[in-house]
């Protein structure tokens, strides 16, 4: 598998304040790569710097050390002068908060990326309608975010990223704030959409079960400073039945191995 993203020796610490000890490293010496079309999950304890890692990859935050190579081209390096958020729409980012625009309806939120990227045509509308159909938001197109349930908002945020088709998608615990049943539904939605169009996905979570259910491979992060504490291929064949993921052969063993690394 050709590497889509290569993270090499990445480190992050926030700038020191005058007269104080330099602040501790949040991420240190992190190296891994993500193959094209791979769904990589990253699991780690809360506050381990998972969001910071994705922010650096998405270029809304700077790295203190190390490099990132995107599709063979060096995109993040320590001497970098300016950030390019989203790397010219090639990196999509589904954040922990849905970040829907409260003054836009569902459909206008979903179309927002296309609108800023040069206008909405019939093809764009058709694509948005297709995605709204795929995640079961039909009938809620004209609703404002505050009128939607938490799960619906997550779906809207997810398809807002899918609608403009970035080759790489970063996901930061996107389903953490919804109830277990809705979460399973959202995970199934995600896997179905991913199986149709194999994107490269980096999916961060603190939930080991979720990391197994979704991933081709799972990385385990240590506590601060975050480093790679373990790497596990997920030997469960696809398509996977997420509702019964616990009962599938191999689940218990991989769960135990990952659990041992998460300390």
């Amino acid at each position, binding site marked *: 598998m050709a590497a889509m993203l290569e993270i090499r020796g990445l480190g992050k610490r926030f700038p020191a304040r005058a007269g104080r000890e330099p602040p501790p490293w949040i991420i240190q010496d992190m190296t891994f790569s993500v193959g094209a079309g791979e769904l990589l999950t990253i699991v780690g304890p809360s506050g381990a710097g998972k969001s910071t890692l994705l922010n650096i990859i*998405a270029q*809304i935050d700077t790295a203190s050390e190390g490099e990132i190579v995107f599709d063979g081209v060096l995109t993040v390096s320590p001497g970098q002068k300016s950030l390019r*958020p*989203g790397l*010219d*729409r090639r*990196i*999509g*980012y589904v*954040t922990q*908060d849905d*970040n829907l*625009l*409260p*003054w*836009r*309806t569902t459909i206008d939120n979903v179309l*927002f*990326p296309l*609108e*800023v*990227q040069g206008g909405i045509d019939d093809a764009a509308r058709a694509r948005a309608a297709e995605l709204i159909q795929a995640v079961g938001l039909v009938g809620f197109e004209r609703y*404002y975010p*505050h009128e939607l349930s938490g799960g619906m908002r997550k779906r809207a945020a997810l398809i*807002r*990223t899918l609608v*403009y088709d970035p080759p790489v998608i970063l996901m930061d615990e996107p389903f953490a704030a919804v109830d277990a049943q809705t979460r399973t539904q959202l995970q199934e939605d995600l896997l179905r959409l991913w199986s149709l169009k194999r994107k490269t996905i980096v999916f961060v979570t603190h939930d080991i079960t979720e990391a197994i259910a979704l991933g081709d491979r799972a990385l385990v992060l240590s506590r601060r400073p975050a480093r790679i504490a373990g790497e596990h291929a997920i030997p469960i064949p696809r398509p996977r039945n997420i509702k019964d993921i616990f009962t599938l052969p191999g689940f218990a063993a991989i769960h135990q191995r990952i659990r041992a690394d998460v300390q």
Partner: protein
Amino acid sequence: MRLRVWFDRLVVLLILLAAWQAGSAVFGAYWLSSPWATISRFFVSLSDGELVRHGSYTITEALAGSVIGGVPAVLLPFVLRRQPIIVAILDPFMVGGYGAPKLAFAPLFILWFGIGIESKIALVAAVVFFIVYFSTLSGVRALDTKLVQMAQVVGASERQVGRHIVFPGAVPAIFAGFRIAVPYAIGGAVIAELISSNRGLGYLVQTGAMNFDTTQVFVAILAAALIVHAFIALVDLAERFLLRWRPRGAALIVDHGT
């Protein structure tokens, strides 16, 4: 519930009118006009066109001043959004302008712009500008950076961020500013007319007082209060339409601090 509120309002109104009537009876209608005299004169004045003539003059001043003062007050925080140093440099002067008693400038404006409508518009503009500026500034500052990052990641330019994220986010604060500014705009116009004018509600107050006609003074004040009510209702109507995306009952926090 709603009916109850209206009933209670009626009770408060009657109490106020009774107190007024009592005051008028004690001090004499010569010094303090009675509510009945005021209300009947109000309708007479309304039907003979006198009140409309003066009221519309005051409304014109208030509207023109609100536009001239309000539009730059809304635009400036957006233009300066990426220039925090300029905002910081301007801040003490803006606070000074906000805090200075603008009504004290009325004689100066009359000196500069004459006793015509221009000096009144200038005073209203000066009053409205600072109120709306600080309100808009607080709205722009309360910007949700996560929404901005989202927009940048999906490819929004700086201009698009301003148009699609910053501006809609600041609209509630802009409305709050204008709602606060309405009575100051009408009040500013009336005060400017009081000092020197031959038309307007302030002129009615002035001539009424000069002729010891307290009824006319009260009629003019009543008219000004009703105009303020009407304009606030219009602002509310526009707000309800433009901010229909907001959950009902959402509290609006407006910081008028420095």
